């Protein structure tokens, strides 16, 4: 059975930070169309700060997620601070004690992230938020596991569903957040959070895949 060793996998968070920082301008641009144009700036600042703290230390994935989540929550503010902050601290909580993370633990971790986000933001699928990426992605991952597909293949399903979920936001009218005030004018543009969430999930999946033993 494929699994990921928790120890020394903290580096994966550096890869997440890198992809977010690389997409700083792009994410802000999307946010600028129907939001206030700072999503990339906010995300890059938070993930960059966390990466600075992690670099040079050998951390478990759980420890690195916890660092990232705590930095987002206590130093970033905005919507992303609490939302991604609670997601990553919840991720960390689930895998905290595990030596190795199998597909089932990974699925439980993702699910707990969704719970955290919904408990604080009260958004639903269809509201044009990052949940439109996250929820179908996790659903697909769990479905693949239930169908006894290997961990790696389940991660492929996760990526495909995340990207489809992100794209689904294009046709949605925003029901929550700044963009919700625009009504019909919010249609036709990707959601910024859904886009960053797809980047995060696919980067996470690819890095996990490379480390599966």
């Amino acid at each position, binding site marked *: 059975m494929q699994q990921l060793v928790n120890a020394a996998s903290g580096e994966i968070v550096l890869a997440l930070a890198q992809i977010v920082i690389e997409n700083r301008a792009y994410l802000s641009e999307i946010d*600028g169309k129907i939001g206030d144009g700072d999503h990339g700036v906010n995300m890059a*600042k938070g993930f960059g700060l966390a990466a600075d703290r992690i670099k040079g230390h050998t951390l478990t994935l759980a420890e690195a997620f916890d660092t990232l989540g705590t930095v987002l929550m206590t130093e970033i503010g905005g919507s992303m601070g609490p939302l991604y902050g609670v997601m990553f601290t919840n991720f960390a909580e689930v895998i905290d004690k595990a030596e190795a993370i199998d597909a089932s633990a990974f699925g439980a971790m993702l699910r707990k992230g969704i719970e955290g986000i919904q408990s604080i933001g009260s958004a639903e699928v269809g509201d044009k938020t990052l949940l439109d990426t996250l929820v179908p992605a996790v659903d697909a991952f769990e479905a693949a596991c239930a169908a006894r597909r290997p961990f790696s293949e389940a991660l492929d399903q996760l990526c495909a569903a995340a990207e489809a979920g992100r794209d689904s936001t294009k046709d949605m009218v925003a029901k929550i957040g700044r963009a919700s005030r625009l009504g019909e004018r919010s249609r036709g543009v990707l959601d910024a959070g859904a886009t960053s969430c797809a980047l995060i999930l696919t980067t996470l999946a690819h890095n996990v895949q490379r480390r599966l033993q």
Partner: protein
Amino acid sequence: MQRFINDPDEVVEDTVKGFVKAHADLVRRAENPRVIVARQAPVKGKVGVITGGGSGHEPAFIGYTGVNMLDAVAVGELFSSPTAKSFLDAAREANGGRGVVCLYGNYAGDNMNVKMAIKLAAKEGIEIATVVANDDVCSAGPLERAKRRGVAGEIFMWKCGAAKAAQGASLEEVRATAQKAIDNCRSVGVGLGPCTLPAVGHPNFVIEPGTMEVGIGHHGEPGVRVEPLKSAKEIAADMAATVLDDHALPPGTEVAVLLSGLGATPLDELYILNDTMAEAIEARGLKIYRTYVGNYFTSLEMVGATLTVLALDDELKQLLDVEVHCPAMR
């Protein structure tokens, strides 16, 4: 960008430093560098009054810290909610033992961070009551008022809430008065030119020359409609109508009027708008008790203006009259 800045990522830090240097007689920085505190705070036995919000709205929010005004303010990044930790630290600094009221604007980030701060504060025995400003008429229909954004009406909410607290009212009384103040406020914004987050480097949105964005938000959130740029008279009359149609105040009601520039609008143009607005307001049989014209709540270097009308009763009038000492208003 023809702007006075250093590192674009340090705009908030540099602003706060320069602010505290200019107004050291009135304010200080807390140990948490993202919290501004009134010199005299905490006042024992007084309800603490705090707010917080993204930066780039100067003099809001920090400029309203002072005597008979806010006790502490949580400072966010540009256009981004402060952290839960900063809201918590502001509450700690403001806490005089009778609880703290947090008077803030209706934005997803602020809602979430305040919610978390309330939980953290409760663990320390600090009770935080909240009022969420939602005065921006164009941000949701009249049946969805709870969804509306908070804009310059927050200033009246702070002024009345803080004055009430200064008079020794209880937490619930302060909360109720601040709630009444914001319930009595309606605002509308019109944008003629966009703003640029320094770290982004180009305008957030486009306003074609010769057009204007009606109902624009304080962060450049696009308005409800784009119109050809009209004369000041027409714009002012439209703005007054938008606000007053939603308000439906009986003739004879006394009101306070706040006309704020969005950052790059010169004062003469605000006075030009006020000329027509005052007429439009009085034409509805309302009586203008006081008018504030200036850059009270801005959006970086956005070109535009907001109008806020506050319906007064005897209590609110008297609270408005209480003298304040803070950098942003008199």
